[in-house]
């Protein structure tokens, strides 16, 4: 479904991605783990077409997207729903307008139908009667859930999650994990999640890949990652300060 081939990206002299390769199969949940600032979000933005790579290719359903023009990308972005790290809710709009935003642009539904779908998708993430609230009136966990409702409202094939459990307490983070698992079952979606939260990764992943120094250094099932012989993977999954990964 998604194939990333030899992806390179540098910002100024800072080489963030140095040849990323991986494949995401239809219907699976792939979790990419890695340190903060190692380029996980940059990788997601390449897959969405938001950023263009310096070198390498991204295939979505066998269409190479890095060479597409902006208007051609519209059909590709329609396949994706994305939950951003800080939720990226439009703060000048109400919750209802936020959730309706993608529906208005990706579908020809009537206003009434969109209104119903907004209500329905908010209910899916456990929220009711908050359509008229502004994003700043919501708690961190509620904002995440509204962000998820906005991302899934137009039924995308692939859902991308950027650090879904960051910035919320462990209980709410686990509730988000349950939601991610439920979304996959209900929508039959393919999911790509980036996180540094190993509790989440083990709970939701079919496969886990580790991004380190701009490359995917290992991919496997949660068990395979747990038993990895790679000292870098072992240091990261056990959260140890000592080891081959520099901690500053």
């Amino acid at each position, binding site marked *: 479904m998604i194939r990333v081939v030899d992806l390179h990206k540098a910002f100024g002299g800072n080489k963030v991605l140095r040849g990323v390769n991986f494949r995401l199969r239809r219907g699976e949940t792939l979790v990419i783990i890695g340190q903060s600032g190692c380029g996980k979000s940059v990788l997601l*933005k390449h897959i*969405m*077409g*938001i950023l263009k790579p310096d070198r390498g290719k991204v295939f979505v359903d066998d269409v190479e997207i890095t060479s597409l023009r*902006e*208007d051609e990308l*519209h059909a590709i*972005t*329609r396949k*994706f*729903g*994305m939950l*951003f*790290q*800080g939720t*990226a*809710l*439009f*703060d000048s709009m109400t919750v209802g307008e936020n959730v309706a*935003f*993608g529906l208005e*642009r*990706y579908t020809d539904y009537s206003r009434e139908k969109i209104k119903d779908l907004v209500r329905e998708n908010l209910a899916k993430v456990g929220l009711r009667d908050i359509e008229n609230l502004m994003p700043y009136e919501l708690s961190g966990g509620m904002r995440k859930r509204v962000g998820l409702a*906005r991302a899934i409202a137009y039924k995308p094939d692939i859902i991308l999650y950027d650090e879904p459990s960051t910035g919320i307490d462990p209980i709410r983070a686990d509730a988000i994990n349950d939601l991610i698992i439920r979304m996959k079952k209900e929508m039959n979606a393919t999911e790509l999640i980036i996180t540094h939260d190993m509790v989440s990764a083990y709970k939701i992943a079919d496969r886990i890949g580790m991004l380190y120094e701009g490359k995917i250094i290992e991919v496997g099932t949660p068990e395979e990652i747990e038993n990895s012989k790679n000292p870098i993977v072992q240091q990261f999954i056990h959260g140890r300060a000592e080891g081959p990964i520099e901690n500053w």
Partner: protein
Amino acid sequence: MFPKVKSPLSFVNAFFEGLGEVSLLCVKTFKSLFKKPWEKGIFIQQLEEIGVRSLPVVSLTAAFGGLVFGLQTYVGFHRYIGPGSESYGGPIISLGLSKELIPILVGLMVTGRVGSAMTAEIGTMRITEQVDALFSLGADPIRYLVVPRTLASFIMLPILTIYGDIIGIAAGFFYNVYMMGVNRVIYIRNTMMYMELWDLFSGLIKAAVFGIIIALIGCWQGLKAEGGAEGVGRATTRTVVIASILILIVNFFLSKALPADIGR
């Protein structure tokens, strides 16, 4: 220990990089003008933000600009030509205000009030990933953010300038006729005799160009803002400085390029 001193070459690089980015944004904005869907809601909201909400500040600057211009032309005629010649200040006030002073004052005021707000709003959207969210939800950020602002600014600046012309010219008239006792009939007759419609119109052309400059610089700086709240603050300051300087420079070249009068 000491901050690094930037080489002059880095300023040249930054200048050409900026020029390239703004030119590209200008071309993309122009192309997007003709693509659907049009963001009517945001366009109308921007018309109100740029136009209606700027009326108080334009009223004040135009009124005091007109008063002070009226004062100095009165003093000038009185001192150098002699008593009784002050009524010739009418056409000079009207010409100076409508061709130069009002378009520039309106441009600078709208830069401070609206250009900076555009950068702050779009810059905040950028650093909180809302611009990326627009893209992911099928809205092209140029079409959604830049086009409505540029179009609204292009339309509202000339309208604000007409309004400012009326206030400014009336203030100059008020100062000369009601405060200094210049003959009302002769003042009006002189103004009508030496003023042309083109004088007003050339000021409006300038204002429309200033409108495009303000919106493009405001949006450009917002879209490239980075570095958190401090970065947005710096981008906002840059918008005011760059747009204000550009308005003054472009005004000179437009004054040179546009004919002084038509059909005389």
